[in-house]
Structures are given as structure tokens and as C-alpha cells.
């Protein structure tokens, strides 16, 4: 924009894409001129921040910024439509709103009672109408309408020179006077405001629809690596699409880049469009190889959209084909089922159990002469790693190998005809099949139980949340309650009340040899979410959250929410409860945040 002339402007439209397919437009298209340059970046950052807090449960898949540079041909200066986000926000911050109303109260110097005839000189008293002229400011009159006298309510207009400047409602059906100005409410007792409230509407968490059909469109993929100078180098890649098995071995290609390129390219077929390709532990180095290859393939017909979170590869989406109309996505199945593959195969009792492999035979640390074309005697059991010695894993491996190997050497001895290539491919494909069977069983289970396919969400927590939203949230709404989506300042405020769990350490001091009891308490999280444990919600009739200033306990017996308060702690308590976040200085001169439970003030 720095190169803009004064006669040029840009039309800008920013859209944010969420992982579950939802797209939101930041705002309507805006017209910006040269003078907006500085504010633009800040504005986008602020808006993004706002959105990310708002859709905190959704993963952001990408942001599209469409812009067009235009010449002003009208001959007249065009006005910029750019406004900072604070000005664009539809919902004003609750405390700002309250302050505004309070300013009005102060500005009009309103008496804090409903004895209206004492506010000035009574000019008119007719039926349900009372008009009072202010004692000091003669241009100011109060028009009080008692139409609803039965419900103990009055509507008051303040007029200056006959023009209404402020309207409010007084309610006096309780011992306190309640004064309502727009969305703000003042509770007045003995001519003093004891509580200010501001209610504001919030968006609520939406239910999601159950899937109609079970989805079987997925592929499992695995990469084997050899270790050279501590560096992992891929030498075999296999995948299984539920019907066909595919394998790629480095000696059949120029180098490993060529092998990976060929393997990935073979996945970019229209028949796989919409498929998820699961790799167990994608976030580990497998993902790095894949990402490198994918980036090298990027061109007019291939685009890559990776999503990372906390060092995990959540999703790598690839759009390909003419007009980029096809897509596949790489996912890390470890984020859905966080157990090693051998554990999963065992627990899901799948047909293809995880087997063992002489990894160390392919590592120059253990075998200085790694040969990817090796054909010879079966590697020693020591090359197979820890799992080989467990139980009868190695003897089972030998049995499997002997039954699968039909080729015998000239001595008729299969054990001296062990081929790295053949066995790697067999092992790698077995992993793919094993993972495929695990995921199929898992998907069948989740679909039959909750009518959702596992491919709708990339991680276990997001899948669990989707299950809650699709099956259980509707029941909550039936009872008339909604889960509010908190954003902006309200989010920042409430977030302060969330601290890490309080932990304690017990050092046993029992005499040596004397046994003690150990207790394992679990399922505390579900317990604290179970029946009778309430969560903050909003009700159907009043879809709003209330911000207040003052001591709410003066007007409500058992208010529910998040309170800013002055706390006086006890002098002594073995396990202090209330925590505060506290910044402390470190020895190095920096400062870090610590959660502490202070006592004794």
C-alpha cells in the first residue's frame, strides 16, 4: 500500500476458514485508502484475536484475503470505509455500556429515588401522567408515566427544552428501586446505588447434525526409515486403501526423494478425493518427510494447507487436479488413538497384529554395513529391539517368516534367504493393514454408538466434543438452556478464574518394612461433570449474560457466576484452596507467572 497514489484505493474482503468447513467473513468488504495502511495490520490482528476467542473450539484452517486495487475514476474523492475493529464490534463491552449509562445518570443529575414530585415543581398531575420541572435547571422537565401503576412501574422521560434526552424505567415492586436505562440496570437502596448490572446477548454453542452414512473412505500409510549418522532416511513407504496394497522401495527409484514423490503422486487420484490418509505418529518425523515432499510438489495444480497445533500436525490438506477440485488430507491417527500401534492392535484384537522388525539392522549405529539390498541369513534377535525378547515375539516372527517365505535358497534353507526389501515391505504393509483394521473397528464403534464418523474430527478431544454437540447438547436445549460462547473482554476476565489443579506431595515416613495403603483416585473429571454439578449456562427466555458492579450478595442469596472480589484468607490451612496467578522475578532477571495459594492476610 506504500506505493499507492492518493487516487488509488483497495477493496478488501477477509474470510476465515474453520476446520469443520465453516467459513466466516470478518466483515463486509471494505474500501481502504493510503491513509489506512498503519491501522490495517493492527486491525486484522485484533479481529483475528477476537474471532479466535469466539470460536475457541474450532481449528482455524486458513485465512483468505481477497483484494482488488482500483483507480478512483469518479473524479471525486472517495471516503475510506475502514474502521478499527473496536468501532465495528456489534456488542459493546458490558462494562463500557454500564459506564455510559452511569455517565448519563450523573449528567442528568438524577435523584436516586422514585419520589418524583420532590424532584422539582409539579406542573401537571393528570390521570397517570406527572410532569415535574427541575428546581435548578428550568429547561429540564421530567415526564413520568404511571400507566402500569398496578405493576409498580413508571416510565420516565427527561426533556430539555421539550426534546427527550433520556428515557428510563423505574420498578419499585420490591423494597429496592430498580432503574433501567437501555440494557443497564441500577439497584437503588436508601438513595444509594448498591449494584449496577448490564445484560448483553451472547452467541451460543450450536448442535451439529449426526452423520447419515458410515464413511469408509480412508487410507493408512507408513514409512520405514534407516539411520545413517543419526539421521533418519526413508527407504520404504507403503499404503493400503482397504482393497489394494501399495509399496515403494528406495532401490527401485533414483533416491528417497524420488520414492516419496512417486508414492505421494500416486495418492493424488480423483478416486481418492475426500479421503483421509492416516499415518500413526504423523507429527513425528514421518510428517516432516511428507511435508517436504508435498511442498516440492506444490504448483498450479497442487496446493498444500497444513495445520499445526502445539507441535502436532493436525491436518495436511492437499487440493489437486484441474481447478484444484480434488482433495486428500493427511491425519495423525495417534491424535485420535494415543497409544502405540502394537498396543492398539492388541486392544482392538485386529486380524493383523503388529509384528517385530530388525530396526537396528538398518541403523549404522548397530550395523556399520547397512545394505538395503541385503539377502542373507536372518538378522540376529538382538537387531529386533526390546519387543522381540518379550514373550514369544521372536519365535512367532520366525514362524510367520517361514510360512510366508516360499523361496528357498539352493540349500533349501529359507533362514539364509532373508531379504531386507521383501521383509521391510511385508512389515510396513502389515502395519498399514493393522492400522486400517484398528481405525475401521474404532469408526464402526463410534458410528454405531454416536452416529458420527471419526474422520469428521482430527483429534480425540475434538471428536469427544463433536459427540457432545451432536447427541447431548440438544437434550440441554430441550430443558431451555444454552452454552454461551464467551469472547473479548468477558473471556479475558473469566479466564483469570481458571488456574492449574492444586497438587500436593506426600512423603511417606513409615518405618521401613511397614506396609502402607496407596489409593488411586481416578475419574475425578467425570465426577465433577456429573449430575448435580452445575455449569454456567444461559436460559432460553433470557439469552444473555449479566455483568455487574457492586456486591451481588446484597441482592441475591446464592448468585452463580464469576466474581472479582477482595479475599481475606485464613491464617492457617493445611491445604489452601483459592489460588492466584502471580508474577515473580527469576534469578536471571526475567519474570514468570506462578500459581500460588496465599494464606495469612
Amino acid at each position, binding site marked *: 500500500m506504500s506505493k499507492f497514489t492518493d487516487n488509488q484505493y483497495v477493496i478488501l474482503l477477509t474470510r476465515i476458514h474453520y476446520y469443520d468447513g465453516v467459513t466466516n467473513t470478518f466483515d463486509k468488504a471494505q474500501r481502504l485508502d493510503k491513509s489506512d495502511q498503519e491501522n490495517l495490520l493492527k486491525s486484522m490482528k485484533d479481529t483475528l484475536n477476537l474471532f479466535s476467542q469466539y470460536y475457541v473450539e474450532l481449528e482455524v484452517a486458513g485465512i483468505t484475503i481477497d483484494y482488488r486495487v482500483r483507480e478512483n475514476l469518479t473524479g471525486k474523492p472517495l471516503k475510506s470505509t475502514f474502521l478499527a475493529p473496536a468501532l465495528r464490534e456489534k456488542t459493546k463491552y458490558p462494562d463500557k455500556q454500564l459506564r455510559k449509562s452511569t455517565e448519563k445518570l450523573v449528567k442528568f443529575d438524577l435523584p436516586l429515588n422514585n419520589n418524583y414530585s420532590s424532584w422539582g415543581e409539579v406542573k401537571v398531575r393528570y390521570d397517570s401522567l406527572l410532569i415535574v420541572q427541575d428546581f435548578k435547571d428550568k429547561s429540564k422537565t421530567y415526564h413520568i408515566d404511571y400507566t402500569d401503576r398496578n405493576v409498580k412501574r413508571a416510565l420516565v422521560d427527561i426533556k430539555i427544552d421539550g426534546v427527550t434526552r433520556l428515557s428510563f424505567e423505574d420498578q419499585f415492586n420490591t423494597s429496592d428501586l430498580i432503574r433501567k436505562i437501555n440494557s443497564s440496570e441500577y439497584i437503588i437502596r436508601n438513595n444509594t446505588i448498591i449494584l449496577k448490572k448490564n445484560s448483553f446477548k451472547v452467541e451460543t454453542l450450536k448442535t451439529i447434525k449426526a452423520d447419515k452414512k458410515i464413511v469408509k473412505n480412508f487410507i493408512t500409510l507408513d514409512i520405514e526409515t534407516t539411520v545413517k549418522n543419526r539421521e533418519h532416511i526413508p527407504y520404504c513407504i507403503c499404503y493400503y486403501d482397504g482393497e489394494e496394497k501399495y509399496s515403494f522401495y528406495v532401490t527401485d527409484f533414483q533416491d528417497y526423494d524420488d520414492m516419496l514423490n512417486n508414492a505421494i503422486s500416486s495418492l493424488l487420484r480423483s478416486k481418492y478425493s475426500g479421503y483421509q490418509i492416516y499415518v500413526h505418529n504423523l507429527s513425528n518425523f514421518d510428517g516432516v518427510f511428507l511435508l517436504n515432499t508435498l511442498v516440492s510438489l506444490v504448483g498450479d495444480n497442487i496446493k498444500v494447507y497444513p495445520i499445526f497445533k502445539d507441535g502436532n500436525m493436525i491436518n495436511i490438506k492437499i487440493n489437486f487436479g484441474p481447478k484444484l477440485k480434488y482433495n486428500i488430507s493427511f491425519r495423525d491417527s495417534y491424535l485420535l488413538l494415543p497409544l502405540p500401534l502394537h498396543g492398539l492392535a492388541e486392544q482392538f484384537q485386529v486380524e493383523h497384529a503388529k509384528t517385530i522388525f530388525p530396526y537396528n539392522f538398518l541403523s549404522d549405529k548397530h550395523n556399520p554395513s547397512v545394505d538395503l539390498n541385503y539377502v542373507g541369513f536372518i538378522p540376529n534377535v538382538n537387531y529386533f529391539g526390546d519387543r522381540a525378547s518379550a514373550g514369544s515375539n521372536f519365535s512367532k516372527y520366525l514362524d510367520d517368516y517361514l510360512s510366508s517365505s516360499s523361496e528357498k535358497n539352493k540349500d533349501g534353507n529359507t533362514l539364509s534367504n532373508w531379504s531386507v526389501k521383501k521383509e521391510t515391505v511385508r512389515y510396513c504393509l502389515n502395519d498399514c493393514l493393522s492400522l486400517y483394521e484398528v481405525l475401521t473397528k474404532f469408526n464402526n464403534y463410534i458410528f454405531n454408538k454416536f452416529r458420527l464418523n471419526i474422520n469428521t474430527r482430527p483429534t480425540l478431544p475434538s471428536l469427544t466434543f463433536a459427540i457432545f454437540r451432536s447427541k447431548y447438547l440438544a437434550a440441554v436445549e430441550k430443558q431451555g*438452556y444454552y452454552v454461551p460462547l464467551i469472547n473479548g473482554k*468477558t473471556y479475558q476476565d473469566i479466564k483469570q478464574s481458571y488456574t492449574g489443579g492444586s497438587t500436593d506431595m506426600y512423603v511417606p515416613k513409615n518405618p521401613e518394612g511397614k506396609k502402607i495403603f496407596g489409593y488411586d483416585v481416578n475419574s475425578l473429571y467425570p465426577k465433577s*461433570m456429573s449430575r448435580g454439578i452445575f455449569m454456567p449456562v444461559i436460559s432460553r427466555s433470557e439469552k444473555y449474560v449479566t455483568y455487574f458492579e457492586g456486591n451481588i450478595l446484597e441482592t441475591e442469596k446464592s448468585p*452463580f457466576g*464469576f*466474581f472479582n*472480589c477482595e479475599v*481475606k484468607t485464613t491464617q492457617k*490451612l493445611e491445604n489452601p484452596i483459592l489460588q492466584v496467578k502471580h508474577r515473580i522475578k527469576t534469578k536471571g532477571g526475567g519474570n514468570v507467572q506462578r500459581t500460588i495459594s496465599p494464606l495469612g492476610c
Partner: protein
Amino acid sequence: MYFSEELKNAEKYGYEYKVQSGYLFDKFDIFAGFIEELYKIKEAHTPKDP
């Protein structure tokens, strides 16, 4: 800023507090059905099951 229920609990242990401002909500045990069903599934399976 503290959650009201945490303050009510702390009161039992001798904490005193004076509320200055805050946010009010309705309350409902939104996770009850969800947790009960998941717990039933967990109870019906051995630790060896996935």
C-alpha cells in the same frame, strides 16, 4: 476473579470475601447425560479394552 462455587466452598474453610464485580449466569448440569452414558460404557469394559 473466582468461580462462585469455589468461593462458597472456601467460605467453609474460613475464607472471607467481598464481591466487587463479576458475571452472572444461569446454571445447569449440562454434562450429566453425556458423562453417565460414557461412564456406563467404561464400567462395562475391562481395562484391557480400548
